[in-house]
């Protein structure tokens, strides 16, 4: 029969041994791309070793998302840092959901699990309102011995302003930044036959859209073109997943501003959203914007209603859309990586189409034309290794590491990176996305300063999704959304 007792006994012992080996082993990083040595002069190297001496052997733990910029810092920069300082870095790369959930739990419960966390610029205000983050300006002032000679907050682009409080104290070191631009298929737009056909049908020249009406004409034209020629080609992308936050984001971050509705239509002084109470979320402009966007679903590939930012990039890279609103971090690989894209070399970068007056608003600072996305690393107030983490943050904030990091993840957070020869060379291949990032940067803006970002957006999702699914129209959806927004804000203690 079964020699259960003997077998059981043996296996029990074996498994006890195995689980006993659950002691943390040295973090093993995956096969990393060959990276050059940090181009730091010899004195700087010894500065790191000296400054880190009291903390050598310490392990700091951090968490971020599984994107190329984060992966680069996790795989390449951690190794360089460990060599220079002897401080170990355990870098947790995880999904978008967990990247928020776990640090929030940690910081709120003060459990000191994470020593540095990814702060997306849309959550920084929520974190600041709860005193989750360490004041880096203050910390460096109090401990000048930790200030690296190669680190200077002033070298960063204006993106760093997103991580300052009202007094100008800085709470995060930027590590990635992109603008959400309008991508279009140069090969299609510059094709003389197609141009002629467009002119014949619409009576004006085919060009990347500057107004919404033009965008619509383009979308309609190319969808028809795709159908007639049996291509899998549609006129536009739509980030319209009917069950994921990404669709709400596209509406409020990308579409509404281009119609002149800023800050999601929320009045930042009174915390109201409905027109009756001084907000703009259900204003005529907003409703026009939402209707326009819903109309675009007619010219988008069928997966649009299942598309998050992820699938939008993939759809465009698969040649399924002639235009699209795509996050900047995708522009580079869509334009250059043959393993992931079939439209390399044919990608054009443009400012999204705008309604009248929006450009002036953006130039004057009253408004903006689109979304400036990105994130920083910050130190939770609950961390037990703040000094070691501060060294890490300065390490990744060095000027010397920026260029290669930019090449690996198409992100730029420092002024000097724009003129780096590596970037200049890449720039030409991506329709000058980097130059445009520099030039247009000031016209774009990050998320509004909401201390309740997640809760607000989470509550606004349902009516927007219902509109995308065709169950209600844009007007009803926005009326509902503004009502819910006001209720949420009041519940959380904002506005009366």
């Amino acid at each position: 029969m079964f020699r259960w007792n003997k077998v059981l006994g043996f296996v029990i012992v074996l498994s006890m041994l195995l689980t006993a080996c659950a002691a943390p082993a040295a973090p093993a990083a995956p096969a990393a791309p060959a990276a050059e040595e940090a181009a730091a002069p010899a004195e700087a190297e010894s500065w790191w070793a000296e400054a880190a001496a009291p903390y050598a052997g310490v392990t700091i733990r951090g968490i971020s998302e599984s994107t190329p910029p984060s992966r680069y810092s996790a795989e390449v920069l951690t190794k360089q840092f460990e060599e220079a300082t002897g401080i170990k870095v355990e870098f947790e790369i995880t999904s978008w959901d967990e990247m928020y959930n776990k640090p929030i739990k940690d910081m709120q419960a003060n459990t000191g699990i994470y020593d540095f966390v990814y702060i997306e610029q849309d959550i920084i205000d929520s974190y600041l309102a709860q005193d989750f983050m360490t004041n880096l300006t203050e910390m460096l002032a109090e401990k000048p011995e930790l200030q690296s000679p190669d680190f200077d907050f002033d070298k960063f682009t204006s993106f760093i302003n997103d991580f300052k409080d009202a007094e100008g104290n800085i709470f995060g070191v930027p590590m990635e930044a992109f603008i959400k631009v309008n991508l279009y298929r140069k090969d299609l737009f510059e094709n003389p036959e197609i141009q002629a056909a467009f002119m014949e049908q619409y009576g004006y020249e085919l060009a990347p859209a500057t107004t919404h009406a033009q965008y619509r004409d383009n979308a309609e034209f190319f969808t028809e073109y795709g159908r007639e020629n049996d291509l899998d080609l549609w006129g536009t992308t739509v980030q319209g997943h009917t069950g994921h936050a990404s669709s709400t984001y596209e509406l409020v971050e990308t579409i509404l501003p281009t119609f002149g509705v800023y800050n999601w239509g929320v009045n930042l002084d009174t915390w109201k959203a409905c027109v009756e109470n001084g907000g703009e979320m259900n204003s005529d402009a907003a409703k026009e914007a939402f209707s326009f966007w819903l109309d675009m679903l007619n010219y988008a590939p069928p997966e649009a209603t299942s598309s998050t930012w992820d699938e939008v990039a993939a759809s465009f890279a698969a040649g399924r859309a002639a235009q699209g609103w795509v996050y900047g971090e995708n522009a580079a690989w869509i334009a250059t990586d043959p393993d992931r894209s079939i439209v390399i070399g044919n990608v054009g970068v443009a400012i999204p189409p705008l309604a009248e007056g929006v450009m002036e608003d953006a130039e004057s600072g009253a408004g903006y034309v689109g979304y400036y996305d990105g994130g920083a690393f910050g130190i939770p107030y609950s961390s037990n290794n703040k000094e070691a983490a501060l060294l890490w943050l300065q390490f990744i904030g060095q000027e010397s590491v920026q260029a290669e990091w930019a090449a690996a993840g198409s992100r730029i957070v420092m002024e000097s990176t724009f003129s780096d020869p590596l970037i200049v060379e890449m720039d030409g291949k991506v329709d000058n996305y980097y130059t445009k990032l520099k030039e247009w940067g000031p016209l774009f803006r990050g998320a509004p300063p909401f201390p309740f970002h997640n809760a607000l957006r989470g509550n606004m999702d349902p009516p927007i999704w219902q509109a995308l699914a065709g169950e209600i129209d844009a007007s009803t959806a926005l009326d509902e959304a503004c009502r819910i927004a006001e209720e949420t804000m009041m519940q959380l203690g904002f506005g009366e």
Partner: protein
Amino acid sequence: MRSNRMGWGLLAPTLIILGVMGLLPFIYVLVVGFTDWNVFSATGRPVWAGANNFRRLVFDAEFLGSMGRTLLFTAIVVISELVIGFLLAQALVKEFPGKAIFRTIHALPLMVAPIAVGATWRLLTVPGLGILPHVLDKTFGIEYNVGRHASHAFATAALMDIWHWTPFVTLTMLAGLTALPKEPMEQALVDGANRWQVLRHLTLPMMMPVIITTSFIRIMDALRIVDEVYLLTGGGPGDSTRFMGIYIFRVVMQRTDYGYGSAVSLLVYYFTLVLCWMLFVGLTQIGRQQE
């Protein structure tokens, strides 16, 4: 010699582990359910709120909607799985060459992680990537879009669950069928009863314990479903596949509303308890009546 202490001693490790991992968190959730607590509210700390959360629940259209949806979903999938599983188990009782292979193949979906099930079905059904919409469109001209049409999403979610869990029902039913005594059935056939009567008056009543056990487990799990559906549709389109498990997930994780989320969880827990209890009583009554 065999004192009670020995008995408790054997039981102790189980009680300790379950007490720590199960009871303590439950008490915590119980307390939090009576507070007003959102991580990003103006205060950020839990505030005692009495039964406010539960009062809110009663009028929460979103929650009630998700409850109704989940009940419908559970009814559809559990009944389908019970029927299909029973029929397939019948077909597996007799010997035929290759039976073991078919049984193994049939049991495969049980081995797939729920999150992988969701991902697989998403890969099957997303237009542009999936084979199902493509074939349905090109061969039959039917539009099949899980992201667009609520009915498509709901039906697909149900199909996915049936695909995933029917093998479980088949195996338990098979176990039950093989353990039944043969004589009563054969005697009845000899006495002139037809197969349908044998099934209805002999087999089913004798299988009642197995049917009850299986439906309990399936109901408990179907009411809590999250991973698979979340990967497939995220709860959409709109709210058509936002079942209670996903609703709670959104409240707790995305809206960081711990107080309300705990209250909803408690309610769902209590509700499941009552439902199972009612079912238990109901099915045993039917079982007794048959005898």
